[in-house]
């Protein structure tokens, strides 16, 4: 251990005092002012960033949501109370976005079931296991714009999907995948499943593989079949990660943005809550007050969901202090 590095503030003092006279470094809470200050020196920059880019915006958001501000610096911010919150539930162009979320909630449930199936299958010895694992997971890593284009190409009229249906003689099933308001949300939610299934899958697989293998051996000795192993060993072992994924999935379903924005810009009935918020806040509408109210509402929902999740399945291993 070298002690000859750049000596910030206190190093000479340390050198000047023999150690027994200088207990400030080792004792807990016994030190002088410098000892109390040190952690804050480490925390200064992170806390400023946290304040400026997370809490200040969150606070401003609540403030803007109570005004009719249009987003221009010079414009007045007239206090309108809870009017903006009322508008969220009464405006014809906002109400449908809540229904669109249901498609994504449904999709994320499907996604979790698929992920759970493959995680269970691949937790048993399988040929080319790593290859299958890699293939199923890879979409999660791909750039969202690239995924958007890949599926725009797949879904375009006469594109890959229509051609594939044609090859199997199923032309009758062809649809305007992104143009028909009755279909578009299924297409987009399906894209979302393709993109995110791999994440759930890898998380579930990791949790299953952390179950000690002795338990499986004991279960097999006791004559438990594969299904019983799943029911009594795997399922309880991954309860926590399932509940966490479930909450993340619901919060994610409300905050869907990238895929529909890149692929359809929210057209043909695919408008989501967050796209609407973004368009109101930054588009030609200049409804910053209303957009802020929507952001506050989403924030509140996410916080409540997380709180519920923590109540149902307490964090056992995550204890930071």
């Amino acid at each position, binding site marked *: 251990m070298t002690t000859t590095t750049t000596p910030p*503030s206190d190093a000479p003092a340390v050198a000047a005092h023999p150690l027994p006279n200088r207990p400030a470094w080792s004792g807990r809470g016994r030190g002088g002012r410098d000892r109390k200050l040190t952690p804050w020196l480490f925390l200064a920059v992170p806390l400023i960033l946290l304040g400026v*880019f997370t809490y200040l915006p969150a606070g401003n*958001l609540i403030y803007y949501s109570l005004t009719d501000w249009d987003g221009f610096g010079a414009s007045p911010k007239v206090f309108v109370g809870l009017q903006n919150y009322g508008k969220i539930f009464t405006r014809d162009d906002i109400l449908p976005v809540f229904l669109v979320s249901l498609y994504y909630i449904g999709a994320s449930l499907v996604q979790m079931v698929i992920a759970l199936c*493959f995680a269970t299958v691949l937790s048993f010895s399988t040929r080319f296991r790593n290859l*299958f694992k890699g293939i199923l997971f890879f979409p999660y890593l791909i750039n969202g714009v690239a995924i958007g284009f890949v599926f725009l190409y797949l879904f375009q009229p006469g594109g890959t999907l229509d051609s*594939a249906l044609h090859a199997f003689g199923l032309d009758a099933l062809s649809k305007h995948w992104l143009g028909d308001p009755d279909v578009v949300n299924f297409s987009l939610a399906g894209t979302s499943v393709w993109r995110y299934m791999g*994440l759930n899958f890898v998380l579930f697989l990791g949790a299953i593989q952390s179950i000690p293998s002795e338990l499986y051996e004991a279960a097999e000795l006791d004559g438990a079949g594969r299904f019983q192993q799943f029911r009594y060993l795997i399922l309880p072992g991954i309860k926590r990660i399932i509940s966490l994924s479930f909450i993340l999935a619901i919060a994610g379903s409300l905050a869907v943005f990238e895929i529909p924005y890149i692929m359809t810009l929210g057209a043909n009935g695919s408008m989501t809550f967050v796209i609407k918020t973004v368009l109101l806040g930054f588009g030609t509408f200049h409804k910053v007050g209303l957009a802020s109210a929507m952001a506050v509402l*989403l924030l509140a929902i996410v916080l409540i969901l997380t709180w519920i999740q923590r109540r149902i399945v307490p964090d056992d291993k995550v204890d930071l202090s």
Partner: protein
Amino acid sequence: MISRVVLTALKYLTLIVASVVTLLPLGVVLIASMKSQSEFVTTGPFDFPANVFNIDNFVTAIVRGGMVQGLINTSFIMVVSLTGTILIGTMTAYAIDRFTFRFKNGVLGLFLLATLVPTVTTQVATFQIVNSMGLFNTIWAPIVLFLGTDIISIYIFVQFMSSIPKSLDEAAMLDGANRFTIYWRVIMPLLKPAIATVLIIRGIAIYNEFYIPFLYMPSSDLGVISTSLFRFKGPFGAQWEVIAAGTMVVIVPTLIIFLILQKYIYNGITSGATK
């Protein structure tokens, strides 16, 4: 016995079907990227390209699509943000894990609560702050935002640091090292695995980030990988073969990184997502 065989066959069949569903959408884009414009119009999406070494579309995408500039900008943003994230994350974790001080739990709570804030929506307000700092339409806007809102990394560092024995710090103190020396000379080297994790998951996240650069850097010479690809929609709107090539240009680096760093990526994703 027979049912076992059937089950095994079924298992591999499902896995193969899933692999096809995953790879086919990417495969047809790859095929399209190698076709000439006239070939693309006259052939079906599954027809193999006449010349698999046709790189014209890639040249068009990279040169006329501004992807070189995008790559340079993404690299710059990535290097600065990742360096900053590691310094900030490790400093925070060091302060929280190795000191006892007033309001410590409050500080920790502030960081943890912040992980729940969905950044896409709060941009309505964040935008005003970034704008008032004069950073709008500069490359520093995404950098400060990536630094300011990356709390997952802090979390990973805190978790990892609590597994490093405190006796190492104490030994260094007895040698007369001060807190900054300990942070830099003792803790930092031991944090290497956590730093690798953060580099990987944040690196991928920054490479893939679309919304922040899209919102804060509308200027055409400030495109990053995501936004320069997104801008293909306009000029190349009717040229699917060029869009396909651009899409491949964006995906291939991810694939290479994934093949090289598989194990670390799985570990990183697991520790990052289960916060």
